């Protein structure tokens, strides 16, 4: 009887203790996700190929549907807005030269795949490669501005990563990131360095004009 009681006490003590300890385990990742439909995987999707799955049981917010009714903006002078796509809330082009810029407003739920990952991918789009340290410096030195409605924006000017004597026809990116509710909104302009210099103020005016209802 005594030994039974001792065993029971040991069992209870062991069963109730939950002291954390360093654990080691092997994680196997199977990723054979089917390719996305062509419309979604088009080049205009700034998040194509990213793993957007969260670790939570709640559905990942499909931010476009939610944010589309919530955001407004003013199209800069000389620009023309075209209808959005599945991924884009809006697209913009120059009236005088429709192929000179490709600007879009995109919103995604949560952390939107990670800022570093997005920036790395955009760097790849303009064939630039920088170290992790440089990337963090780039993020830390990002210009911040406020929209007219008081939203905080981080502005990423990729021309600062390109050499001063780079040919004006070289592609570059101007990107802005802001958070509305729990969605991350990206405003991104792809253009040549020369056109970017010319359209920088228009881009910033678009960014400043973004309002959340």
């Amino acid at each position, binding site marked *: 009887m005594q030994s039974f009681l001792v065993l029971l006490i040991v069992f209870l003590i062991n*069963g*109730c203790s*939950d002291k*954390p*300890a*360093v*654990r*080691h*385990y*092997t*994680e*196997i*990742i*199977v*990723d*054979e*996700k*089917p390719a*996305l*439909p062509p419309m*979604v995987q088009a080049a205009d999707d700034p*998040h194509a190929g*990213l*793993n*957007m*799955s*969260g*670790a*939570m*049981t*709640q*559905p*990942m*917010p*499909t*931010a*476009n549907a939610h944010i589309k009714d919530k955001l407004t903006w003013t199209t800069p002078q000389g620009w023309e807005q075209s209808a959005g796509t599945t991924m884009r809330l809006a697209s913009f082009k120059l009236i005088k030269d429709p192929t000179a810029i490709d600007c879009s407003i995109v919103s*995604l*739920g*949560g*952390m939107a*795949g*990670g*800022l*570093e*990952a997005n920036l790395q991918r955009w760097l790849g789009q303009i064939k630039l490669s920088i170290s*992790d*340290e440089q990337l*963090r410096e780039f*993020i*830390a030195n990002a210009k*911040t501005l406020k929209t007219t409605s008081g939203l*905080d*924006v*981080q502005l990423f000017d990729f021309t600062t990563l390109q050499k001063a004597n780079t040919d004006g026809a070289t592609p570059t990116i101007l990107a802005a*990131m*802001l*958070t509305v509710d729990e969605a*991350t909104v990206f405003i991104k302009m792809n253009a040549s360095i020369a056109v970017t210099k010319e359209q920088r103020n228009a881009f910033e005016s678009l960014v400043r004009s973004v309002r959340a209802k």
Partner: protein
Amino acid sequence: MIKPDTLLKLCSSVRITVICLFWLFVLTFWGTVAQVQQGLYVAQERFFYSFFFLAAKWIPVPGGQLILWILFINLVAAAITHFSKLRHWRYIGLKLSHIGLLIYFVSAFVTFHVTEESYVHMAEGEGTNLSSSYEKWEIAYWTDKGDTRKVTAYTLSGIKIGETIPFNSPDFTISVDQFLLNAAAFTKTLPASGVRPLNGSGISLLQPKEVQKEREKNVAGGLFTFKTAKKTESVVLYGAESVPTRLMINGKEYFFSLRRVKKELPFTIRLDDFKVKFHPGTQTAASYESFATLTLPKGGERKTHIYMNNPLTFNAYTLFQASYDVDSQGREYSTLAVVKNTGRILPYIACFVVFFGLALHFLISAFYKRLSKT
């Protein structure tokens, strides 16, 4: 001073049994109805796992665990009191069925203390050998980039500010500056120090949010100080990040993540296909089902189909179809609830012993009466 015999007699009262069984009925009904408003896990913890809970915010009411303990004591006391009076062999069936009932209580105790609940969340084509805890968080790191990683992790339950996480790594030490069980993350606002901490997603600030009773809704976040031989850096980790934070330490690439505690499964499960059917003209799911493949560690594959009331059972593990969601790119995800219950065989044993005892008692009674008549 109450004598032991009197106490035993009091404890073995049939009135206690009846009251407890009636209250269990009330709790079962109340808890089932409350699940609709409060959610499954909150209702379970409030009504069934508690000793007491508050009704109408101030009236203490006995919970399921207390009632089960009282019933257990009542049954043991009854067994001690009455069994001594039933020494004749013809009562062996009655005794056996009571022992079976006691095994039920033991199995309830074992199940309560050893059962582990977690979940697996996968998109079609994705697979894993790990399940995630609903409520506990771990800080994990690895250096491998491939499909198989050797992960080192530490559960952050009860972690204190300033505490050093005992990873014992020669390359770094990590101490906790802030840990929030439920946090909101901001990429735009700098902390009061004005220094932007490192983070793979650009998060610069965490703010506490009210901790949700529905534990799976909380998203933890923490600010940590990483010390290496060369420098000291502040790093923010947030539970909803889909990418780990990458740090180069001593020329080696490390990946750090704050995530729900992972538990190894004895197999790798891959979601091959997920199907959902809606009620006509609505967005309300009528049924949803997962088609998955299990890869066993010794080799070999097993196809499985998991849907409502048709869970997958593998050794001590049972996987139930729990929920689903769709991401912004239209990919379907399935969530499977994972229950590991090493004592799952005990209720079957209890059931068998009760059945065998009652059958024996019935047969002996019939046989004994016939013998007595002759």
